[in-house]
């Protein structure tokens, strides 16, 4: 529409001058400036040149006859000056308009590049979008971004030949301008500019266009520097995003763990309160009975036995609570080391569980080395493990306790039962404080502290503890304790079984 208006204005001014007697000095000639300036403002330098040339061509048949007739007079000179001014004014206004438009477009493109490269997308997608943006917004035929000097990969997968102009610039060369590739019927310009970043060269921007003026090339160099920086920022942002995501995952995991710990702790407090209350109630009740009534000697003895058992239970619970306190403070249990015979330790424990009869199978080896350990701690570990094994096994199922040599210079104790077993998902947590396997809750009483305390005691000795289990077949807990220095015998050990019952093996 605008070209038609400009042409109409030129025609109107010419017609007006023709009607005015075709006088070159007519004031109407100044109206030629209107379409020329309008064209300059609308289309820049090119529009001004076309409109200016049109105005001069239309004005020339009016001026030239006067020049031919009168020669160079003041009037003809003034008319000729008008033609020159039409071109000069058009050129100045058009050049300013072109420059302003170019600056505006340059800023607009930079803003669009910024928008693309700050999106929260993978870097390959950003590069594809950037290429599409450059092709759409710049007066070019094609564009490519060559990255990573190692393989010169382009986002669209085309790749660059290692000896190509693009690879040469990406490796560290300066901007290159090629006036023509010689492949097309019309010239095809190529500009390759480096993508420079604060950390060094990051690739090259390749552009093919029909025309690339010196100003276009300078703009491309600026764009390359900007894209280089923006790419580096995008990479850093992506790295930060990944780090933040990892951190979030870790925090979530830790929060979950803490929540579970808190829940377990609450459960523990409830259980511990109940466990404390039960023996205390028994002690209070039986103590009151003894104080207020008269009993036979046998009855007193029976009541005293009950009071003793409940007191021992209370002591165990208090010991567990103390150990819990130590575990939470991160301090290792205090050990009073001595030379301990594994066979004697097992024998002592077996006496404690005399009441279970043949359910408990104890196996030791002759010539087994003594261990360097706290006898009370060993006793407590074994009692805890055996109690657990008995507690979670069916009433008739057997529990095997074994002590064998273990390399290097250790003795391995194993407690094995034929209980329901522990699910694989619960195995990694059985040594955590307060943890109780979901199936165990309700099946038997417990605070969830026993195995945590056992682990702490074994590790305080410098040993290791492990658990293997198979649901429906049973559980095996093994721990090692270091043997006393030089006490380990080289003679093969011979197994001694205190219970004649054979131990069934899984088939």
């Amino acid at each position, binding site marked *: 529409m605008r070209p038609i208006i400009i042409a109409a204005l030129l025609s109107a001014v010419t017609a007006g001058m023709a009607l005015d007697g075709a006088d070159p000095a007519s004031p109407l000639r100044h109206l030629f400036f209107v379409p020329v300036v309008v064209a300059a403002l609308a289309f820049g330098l090119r529009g001004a040149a076309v409109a200016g040339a049109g105005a001069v061509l239309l004005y020339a048949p009016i001026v*030239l006859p006067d*020049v031919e007739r009168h020669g160079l007079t003041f009037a003809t000179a003034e008319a000729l000056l008008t033609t020159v001014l039409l071109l000069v004014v058009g050129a100045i206004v058009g050049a300013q308009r072109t420059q302003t438009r170019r600056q505006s477009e340059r800023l607009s493109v930079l803003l669009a590049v910024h928008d693309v490269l700050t999106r929260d997308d993978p870097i390959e997608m950003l590069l594809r979008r950037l290429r599409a943006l450059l092709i759409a917004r710049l007066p070019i035929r094609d564009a490519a971004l060559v990255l990573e000097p190692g393989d010169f990969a382009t986002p669209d997968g085309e790749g660059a030949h290692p000896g190509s*102009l693009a690879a040469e610039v990406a490796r560290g060369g300066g901007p290159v301008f090629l006036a*023509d*590739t*010689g492949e097309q019927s019309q010239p095809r310009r190529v500009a390759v500019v480096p993508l420079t970043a604060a950390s060094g060269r990051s690739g090259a921007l*390749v552009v093919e266009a029909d025309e690339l*003026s010196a100003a276009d090339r300078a703009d491309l160099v600026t764009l390359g520097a900007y894209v280089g920086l923006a790419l580096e920022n995008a990479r850093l942002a992506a790295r930060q995003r990944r780090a933040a995501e990892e951190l979030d995952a870790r925090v979530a995991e830790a929060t979950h763990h803490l929540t579970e710990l808190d829940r377990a702790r609450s459960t523990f407090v409830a259980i511990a309160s109940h466990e404390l209350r039960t023996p205390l109630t028994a002690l209070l009740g039986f103590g009151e009975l003894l104080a207020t009534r008269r009993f036979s000697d046998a009855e007193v003895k029976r009541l005293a036995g009950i009071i003793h058992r409940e007191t021992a239970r209370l002591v165990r619970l208090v010991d567990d609570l103390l150990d819990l306190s130590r575990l939470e403070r991160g301090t290792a249990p205090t050990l009073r080391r001595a030379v301990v015979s594994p066979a004697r330790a097992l024998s002592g424990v077996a006496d404690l569980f005399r009441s279970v009869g043949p359910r408990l199978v104890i196996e030791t080896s002759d010539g087994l080395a003594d261990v360097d350990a706290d006898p009370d701690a060993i006793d407590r570990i074994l009692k805890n493990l055996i109690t657990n094994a008995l507690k979670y096994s069916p009433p008739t199922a057997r529990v095997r306790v074994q002590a064998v040599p273990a390399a290097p210079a250790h003795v391995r104790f194993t407690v094995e039962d034929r209980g329901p077993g522990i699910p694989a998902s619960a195995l990694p947590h059985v040594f955590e404080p307060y943890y109780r396997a979901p199936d165990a809750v309700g099946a038997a009483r417990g605070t969830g502290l026993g195995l945590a305390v056992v682990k702490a005691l074994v590790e305080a000795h410098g040993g290791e503890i492990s658990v293997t289990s198979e649901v429906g077949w049973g559980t095996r807990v093994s721990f090692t304790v270091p043997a006393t220095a030089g006490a380990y015998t080289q003679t093969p050990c011979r197994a001694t079984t205190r219970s004649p019952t054979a131990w069934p093996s899984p088939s």
Partner: protein
Amino acid sequence: MWALRHPAAAARLPFHHGWLESRAVAAACLAALVTSSVGLVPAEVAAVIGVATLHGGLLAAALVWGGIPVREAVPVIALLALARTAVALHPVGAVLYLAVPLWLVVLAANGRLSRLGLAPPWRWGGVVIGTLAGIALALHLIACASRTLGYGVRVDAATVLPALAYDVGANVLSAELFFRGALFQHLWRRWTFGVALALAAGAAALRYVLDPFVATIELRVGAAVYMGLLAILNGTLLRWSGSLLPGIAAATMFFACYRLLASG
């Protein structure tokens, strides 16, 4: 993309391989032209040599520049000499000028003039626009010439038609193929469109200003202005259409209208 596939060294390869040979042909023709114009030979012979060396030289140089072997390009000089000789004998001999465009059509149809911008497919829309643009420029010339110099319009077939055959077969084709097809495109592959157009238009205008048959100062000024404008117009048409054909149409129409001018 070129810069991704080709080694950096390929960027230094020349595009026009016939650059040296075309300059040799042009130099030889220029020498013959100068020789003929200093009065060493009779006027009629000088005219034959002038047409053959000026237009034939430009045409042959353009063809060699565009990749046609010298042995195939140079005969056009003889062909134009023959046509000019035939015109000297009888005006109908001007028909021989039309052998040149026919020969060029054969070359173009075989795709051998693609480097000069003459190759199928032909865009007839561009030809129409070129024709209209050439008529518009010629009408301006007629208006200016009639108002300024008092020229009128005549329709004399016996004079106009041989001149038109000369324009079609020698004048227009040699100018378009050399100044636009070869020189302008060569310059355009090295500099921007504006610079290349200015240089090629300047060269084309200069060729007419220096033409010994353009005798008066008014004609020289007119030739400089209108040949410059025609060169700018045809260069723009070449860029827009990718073909030399619209420019040839514009120039043909311009010269056809020009031939209608008669002094007095």
